[in-house]
Structure formats: C-alpha cells, structure tokens
C-alpha cells in the first residue's frame, strides 16, 4: 500500500512504520518502554504460535489453520486493552487476543486438528470459543452486553467491575445481517459493546470493495455510534483506541466501532491459494508496514531495555514452539463418549442408546485392528 493510500483515510497512528512515536490529540497514550517491550513480547510469541501452527498443518498434524500473520498488532492491541472482567467474542482468527486472554495456545489447536470444536472454557478466560459462522458472535456479544447492563456492571466508576464487551469480526463479516442486527441492538440499547473490526482487506478472495464502497468505520454513524479507523499494524494505536472505546463502554457511554486497518499477509487459511486472486506486490507493500518491525525499531533505537531482551524472547518463542509441536500430537482424541457427552446437558434415552452403539462399533474396529 502506497503512502498516499495510507494517508487518504484518516487513521489513528501512534507509532510510524519506521518506529517513531507520534501523538494523536484524541488518543494520548502514556506507556513505559517496559510496557512497550511487553507488547513486543506478545507480538513475537503470537507470531511464533501462528507460524508453528502453519508448520504443524504442513506436517499433517493440523487439518487447517487460519493465520493471523500481519494482524498481530491489531489483536494484541485490542487484547491488552481488555480488562480481566471484560468479555471478548472472537471469530476464528483471533489467536493474538486468545493469547492476551491467557488461553493456552495449545488449547486453540484442537479445533484445527479436529479433536474438538472448543478447547477451553469461555467463562474461565472471558473469551468465547471460536465462532466460524461469519458474524454470529456479534449478536452473542450484544446479548452479553445486555446482561452486563442488567447486572448494573457499567458506570459505577469501579474499574475492576465495570464491564465492557468486545466483538471481533472481519471486513467480510460486515455484510452479514447478523452484524447489522448487533449494531442495531448495541446502539438502540446503548450497550457497553465495542465492535472490533479487523479490516484485513480480504474475505478469502474477495477484496473489501466487494463488501462496501464506503470506508467501513463510517457505518457506525448511521446507527448513532462512534466509529474510528485505527492503524491496525500499530499496536500502540490499536491499544489506545480500543482502550478508550472500552472505557467509554464501561462508563455507560455506549458502543463504538473500531476498524483496525490491517492486512492478511498469509492466505485465508492453509487451504487457500492467494496466487489465484492477488498479486504479491500488494502484500510486499504491507510487509513494509510490519506490525512487529516498527516496535522492534522503536525498542532498539528509543528505548532503554535489558540487552538480553531480544535473545531471551527468542528463547521463549522457541520454547513455546516446542511445546506446541509436542503438545499438538498429544491432544486428546475424540471418543464415542466425547461425541455424545455434550449434545444436551442430560443425555436422552435415544442418545444413550446411540452412544453405546457407537462405542461398541469403535470397540469392534479396535478389536479388528489389533
């Protein structure tokens, strides 16, 4: 993307692609170098888990993976803006936010390995399970926010209990009726909800122009919501903008739409082939805006951090990678019991019978094989 286009749309930026801190009048960000280093650590580890998952897919250990390469800053910025009590509703690509919420990356892999569809308890992390049907989760987020309002958990001034909700979705998702309905609910009921839209320019092979002729953050206005576009490759800007929107939500000042302008550097999933629909040069331009490089540049040039920081981080990433590599293969396999266990909270007689039938069948297969 050329400088010109980058500049054409007003977009909040606090760290330039070459690592310069800049100020934005509406989004002052007081942040220490250690805190920036911590964000950098997140970015590196998230990227590492992503590339490790791709490798696992290539090795046949995962069936599929949806890479977040290029979107780490958007996700870590949003993820670190969340308070512990806030609830987040991801789509299927929010590995970086999952990381920030404390979800073990290994727990994410089962979904892609085909051992489970969830992998973790949403209540334990205030982070919902991945949702694949495009846009659905935005309505869950609106409903959760309605619950927050009914619980009186906004506008009390207590920063440890006032609660906001973050709904994640992509540029393609903006076309779905569900996302609109979530906008309707959020604005009509003034919900403590932040819509976090990662505009990574693509919905599989469809460029964002297939979905909209107007910049997406403008959609908010028509509902009487605040809307803002932030440089999604700038972790500081995304942090500041999302933090502000979440604060507004917690304070009872209603919903916002945050459009994190970014780019999906990898194919849609490991199954996808970008050569069929986009040229490499566009991706190359975006690589120049790499979300990690600018933070590293800042840290190396401007910040006073431990000299071992980068090496230690590389070690940590390596350890993580090894853990994932070993752990993926050990994820518990689905069984007759696991398939039937949670169809309903109490099995029906029919289900019990079918479960036994299935278990017997698996047993007979196992017996035949051995």
């Amino acid at each position, binding site marked *: 993307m050329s400088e010109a286009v980058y500049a054409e749309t007003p977009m909040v930026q606090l760290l330039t692609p070459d690592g310069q801190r800049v100020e934005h009048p509406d989004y002052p960000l007081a942040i220490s170098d250690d805190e920036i280093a911590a964000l950098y650590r997140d970015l590196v580890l998230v990227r590492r888990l992503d590339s490790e998952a791709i490798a696992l897919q290539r090795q046949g250990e995962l069936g599929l993976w949806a890479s977040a390469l290029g979107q780490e800053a958007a996700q870590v910025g949003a993820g670190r803006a969340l308070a512990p009590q806030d609830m987040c509703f991801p789509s299927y690509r929010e590995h970086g936010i999952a990381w920030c919420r404390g979800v073990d990356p290994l727990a994410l892999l089962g979904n892609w390995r085909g051992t*489970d569809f*969830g992998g*973790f308890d949403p209540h334990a992390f205030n982070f919902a399970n991945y949702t694949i*049907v495009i846009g659905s989760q935005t309505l*869950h987020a609106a*409903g*959760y926010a309605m619950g927050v309002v009914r619980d009186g958990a906004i506008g009390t001034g207590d920063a440890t209990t006032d609660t906001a909700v973050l709904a994640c979705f992509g540029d393609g998702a903006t076309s779905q009726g569900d996302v609109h309905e979530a906008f309707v609910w959020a604005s009509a009921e003034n919900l403590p909800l932040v819509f976090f839209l990662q505009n990574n320019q693509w919905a599989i092979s469809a460029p964002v122009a297939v979905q909209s002729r107007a910049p997406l953050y403008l959609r908010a206005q028509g509902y009487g919501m605040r809307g803002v576009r932030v440089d999604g490759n700038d972790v500081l800007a995304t942090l500041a903008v999302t933090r502000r929107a979440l604060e507004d939500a917690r304070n009872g000042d209603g919903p916002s739409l945050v459009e994190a302008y970014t780019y999906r550097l990898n194919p849609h999933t490991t199954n996808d082939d970008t050569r069929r629909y986009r040229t490499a040069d566009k991706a190359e331009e975006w690589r120049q805006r790499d979300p990690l490089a600018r933070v590293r540049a800042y840290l190396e040039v401007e910040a006073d951090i431990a000299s071992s920081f980068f090496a230690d981080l590389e070690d940590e990433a390596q350890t993580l990678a090894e853990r994932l590599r070993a752990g993926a293969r050990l994820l518990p396999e689905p069984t007759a019991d696991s398939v039937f*266990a949670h*169809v309903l*909270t109490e099995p029906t007689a029919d289900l019990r019978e079918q479960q036994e039938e299935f278990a017997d069948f698996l047993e007979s297969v196992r017996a035949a094989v051995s």
Partner: protein
Amino acid sequence: MTELTLAKALNASLRTALEDDPKVLVMGEDVGTLGGVFRVTDGLQKDFGDSRVFDTPLAEAGIVGTAIGLALRGYRPVCEIQFDGFVFPAFDQITTQLAKIHNRSEGSVRLPITIRIPFGGGIGAIEHHSESPEAYFAHTPGLRVVACSGPADAYWMLRQAITSDDPVIFFEPKRRYHSAKEELAPEAYPLFNAKVLRPGRDVTVVTYGAMVGMALDAAEVAAGEGRDLEVIDLRSISPLDTATVLESVRRTGRLVIVHEASRSFGVGAEIAARVQEQAFYSLEAPVLRITGYDTPYPPSRIENEWLPNIDRVLDAVDRAMEF
C-alpha cells in the same frame, strides 16, 4: 384451582418463572406494553419492569442471538417468536449456535433458553401465520422440542422448559390460546414424556398441539361407531417418547399419526420409521399419516378442509382396521 385459557395459563407460567428466578427474562417483539399479539405476556412488563420483560428490535436472528449472549452472562431468557413463519430469520442462530454451543464448549457453556413459538393454523390468518415448522428443529441435534396442546398441561410444561438447562423450542397451538378454558394440572408431568389421554384398544392415534383436541373428538365419534381409539399426546417431539408409543401400538397393532405440518419428511415419518422398526411383528396394519398436504399452507378460506380433521382421521382408522 381456577380454569384458564391457554394464553392465560402460559401467562401464569411466565409470571411464576419470573417470580421464582431473577435471571428469567421475557423478550421478543411486542411482548412489553402490548403484552404480545396473543396477550401471552400481558401485564408482565408492568409487574417485572422493562429490563426483565422487554420489546426487542424487529429482527429474529437478533432475538435469538442476543438471548444466547444473555445466557452466557447467566440469564435464562424466554424469547417469543411472534408467529411460526417468522422463526426462519433466526434459523441460523438456532441451528448453528443455540444447538451447538454447549457441544462446542465441551459442556462449559449452558444455554437455558426457551423459544416460544405460536404454531399451526385454523385462525383465518394470512400467509406465514399458520406454519408448523417443528420437524426442522427436531432434526437438529442439541435442541429439545416440545408442543403443548392445551391449558391444563401448558402451565407446567412451560415452567419445565424454562428450568431446563438445554435450549427448548416450545410450540404453542395458537388456535387454542383463547378457546376453551381448562383447569391446570395439579402437578408437573415429565416434560419429555408422551401422555395417553384416552386409552383404547383398536387403533392408536398419536398427535400433538392443536390436533390433540381434534383427535379426542375423533375418538368420541369413533366410539359411537364402536371403534375404541387410544389417543396419545406426544408433548415432546424431540426427544420422542418412543416407549409410550410402542407400548400402545404393541397393544392395538395399529397406528395413525396426525399433524398439521406437511406430510413428507415431517414428524410422522420419524414415528412411523421407529414404530415399524421396533414393533414390526406387532403391527397389523401399516402406520398411517394424516397430515397437512405437501403444499404451502393454503389461503385461510380453505384451511379447515386442508388441515387434518375428524373425517380424515376416521377414514385412516377405517383403513387401518381393514388391513
């Protein structure tokens, strides 16, 4: 106990649920000040406030989707879909989310959501207001699907549905809302069990919803002709209480299934398939189905003829007896 119409019995049930559990919410289009187009939620907003009983924007996916979110936050929403024909915009949220999130989350999340749907015809309505979509939901693992048939049972059935930790699609026979009052049953009967409403020896008639009353009437007429029909109100469509149906068919050897929904791929097909499999040697005649035809629900001036009726049921009984 006093006698109530179906609408009033359901209203009483919602009222008690709201009283008993502060997490219960009642939501939907026009359920607030209006009290619902059928007045089932009459007076509830006034008494429980508009944060517990509230009008939603006009969008059914939104109603079910936000109910899911509310449940995730610990609430127990009861959603009203205004008419059967308007549940379809919510179909995606119901099948891909409501029915699957408990499973997806490996049991971590429970969605104790009740979706009330007035269903069936016979009220002289315009298009989309007389549908019987129950089979779609019954074919969807992860949902429970029940249908009440009248006031006596409905009070408890709705209370049980609301206390269920699973999503329940709760069908209400709309033509019964304001017709004959009944005394409420003194206590709850298991929600997922069928009920033999009239014992009989010759032919078993299985049905649910508004057709229960018609089937009982048919049984009266048949009795006059010396035929002893056993009438079973299915009550639960998913799970199906096959045991109760089988026990009956093993005695009578003959089964007629009645429902308003179109015949093909309807609820009757599943019952027939199970019964012929599990009571193969007991059947003296094939399982017969008296149902709506395989057309869109017709214009109302011909609905009473199109719907299953006493004549058609008796005709099926005759055919079953002649085998």
